[in-house]
């Protein structure tokens, strides 16, 4: 690893994860520090039982079906973006530990095929969703409401996805090499295996990782803090009885 890769795809990864975790805790702490108003702000109809309230909360938080009445395309792309994000996260776990039962069932080649297709679809779906959200912001009235933060975040995510997709479709580097890199991170001795170090793909990877780090660092301090805030805020919705 040269010094720049070591800095961006090594040291910065630790910094990013640390800032993300500490930042998240800090945000929660900051919220809890402020006294809550005892006024019940919920809206009706409301569930009568605890179980009903929980189900309502889960529906509001994860499905927000009421949006279908007012903006169907937005609902679709938002759902795709979030499911895609979750799928991408799960997919990346393969770089820590191979999904052995699946790999055994499909065989080495089959697993590669499966990964290419499923990961490829997720990558494209995510990219399309982000392009939709971004292009929407250039139109009025969205443009009048948008702040630079909105564009910055979308472009950042767009770049991360672009680099990720490049690695998948044009990288010509086997999964084992990426896994070796991730393992080196996990053992606090960041290193690229020879296969990666000698490939031009290395720079795409470094960019992908660097931008992801930036995103991770900014996440708790941005409007995307809803990754944690949505659970609390949707609970307020059912507070009225």
């Amino acid at each position: 690893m040269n010094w720049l890769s070591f800095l961006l795809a090594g040291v910065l990864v630790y910094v990013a994860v640390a800032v993300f975790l500490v930042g998240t805790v800090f945000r929660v702490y900051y919220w809890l520090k402020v006294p809550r108003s005892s006024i019940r702000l919920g809206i009706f109809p409301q569930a009568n039982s605890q179980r009903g309230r929980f189900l309502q909360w889960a529906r509001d938080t994860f499905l927000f079906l009421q949006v279908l009445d007012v903006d169907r395309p937005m609902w679709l792309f938002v759902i795709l973006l979030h499911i895609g994000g979750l799928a991408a996260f799960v997919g990346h776990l393969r770089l820590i530990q191979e999904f052995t039962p699946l790999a055994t069932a499909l065989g080495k080649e089959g697993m590669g095929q499966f990964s290419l297709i499923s990961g490829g679809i997720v990558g494209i779906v995510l990219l399309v969703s982000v392009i939709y959200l971004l292009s929407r912001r250039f139109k009025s009235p969205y443009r009048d409401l948008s702040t630079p933060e909105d564009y910055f975040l979308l472009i950042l995510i767009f770049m991360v996805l672009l680099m990720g997709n490049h690695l998948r479709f044009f990288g010509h580097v086997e999964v084992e090499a990426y896994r070796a890199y991730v393992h080196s991170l996990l053992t606090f001795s960041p290193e690229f295996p020879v296969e990666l170090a000698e490939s031009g793909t290395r720079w795409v990877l470094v960019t992908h990782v660097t931008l992801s780090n930036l995103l991770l660092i900014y996440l708790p301090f941005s409007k995307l803090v809803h990754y944690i805030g949505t659970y609390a805020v949707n609970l307020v919705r059912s507070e009225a009885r």
Partner: protein
Amino acid sequence: MNKTELKTITGVLEQGMNRQLLYYLDVCTRCSICKDACHQYVSTGDVLFLPAYRAELIRRVYKKYFTRSGLFLPSLYEARESDDRLLDELYRSTYACTGCRRCMYYCPFSIDTTWVLGVAKAMLIAAGKGAQILTELAGAAVSKGENIDLFKDIMLDLNKETEKELQSLIGDSKATIPIEKEGADILYAALAGVHSILPPSVIFHKAGLNWTLSLFESANYGYFLGDVEKGRIIAKRIVDEAKRLGVKEVVISECGHAYRVMQYLYETWAKEELSFGVTAMVEIIARLIEEGSIEIPSGKERKIVTYHDPCQVGRNAGFYEEPRYVLNQVASNLRELNPSREKNWCCGGGGGLVAQPEFDEFRIKTGERKAEQIKQTRAGLVVSPCENCRLQITALNEKYDMGVKVTGLSDVVANQLIGRDIATSFEAGQTEEPEDED
């Protein structure tokens, strides 16, 4: 804007800060899903009325003065100095809001825009820019509370007239409208004007309730103004009266926000627990019918009747079934608006808009959805248990040529009880109370 003014405004935000507000300021992604939820944005296309933008104005001040990222990178958030132009924008977008909270229903994060605008109103008031008419009306209500002895005799005289009306309506020369009756079970807080006193009087009399009429009107302009202190004092007049008379239950007239103030806001505003129950008029009518205290004579209205869910009665208080249950007792052809219930469009007159002539044109324009919705039902009678809604729909009726009559729930029930056409008005030949109300 000078430093003192700035301090006033940031001070309001600091003092008014609470966890719910902080959530709302932090999690909004400006996705704009709320844009099609707001009747004002839909009718005008003006971003100033887009719910997320209304809250965004406050958010930009918050980012500028209260967050580190806003301090270091103000341009990233368009974090704003709080200048006079901001205050003008705030005024226009904040006082125009009817507080219907339809945007909260559609928001994936359930952001309550009115909660954020509460701070905006407090800022405007602190900067001496509170809505003028609302300030005057709230001031008058506060002063009435302080000088009730001056008003009492006139009110008692007027009540004698109203009592005579009641007696002739129900054919009982001994019927009374009690005022200041100690030991009554129920204190009824009406709106000023006999139209809000007579129909409930008929119902309570027929049900044989032990009730008394409040000296104070239930409407609360302090709430519309966004002045919590005035709002508290105005509501406290009724609370004190209820405590003095020892009633078990305070019934709030067909007035959406008055119920919200008493049921949801007062205890926090005043830091005291209410010693009596708070009941909405729609609730008690349904209860009286259900328990058989009043019997609705047969002979239902056959013409098409529609029901408009007032935002403060439906979405913000949960009374969806009660009014429909009652209406189905008196009318055989109840037709729903589309959409209705929690998805119902705001009439466009709430939030004190009908009391402010500066919004006259605006509320007629932004009521076009409501007019269209009502026309689609082909109803001849619109029932809505909220004074703001009724005044607004009456105005819309004229402008959009809807050809409907607009009335309240207690009106149709009282009419049915005394054998009149359910659409008959309770206003005719009546004397008004001396102050201007709703």
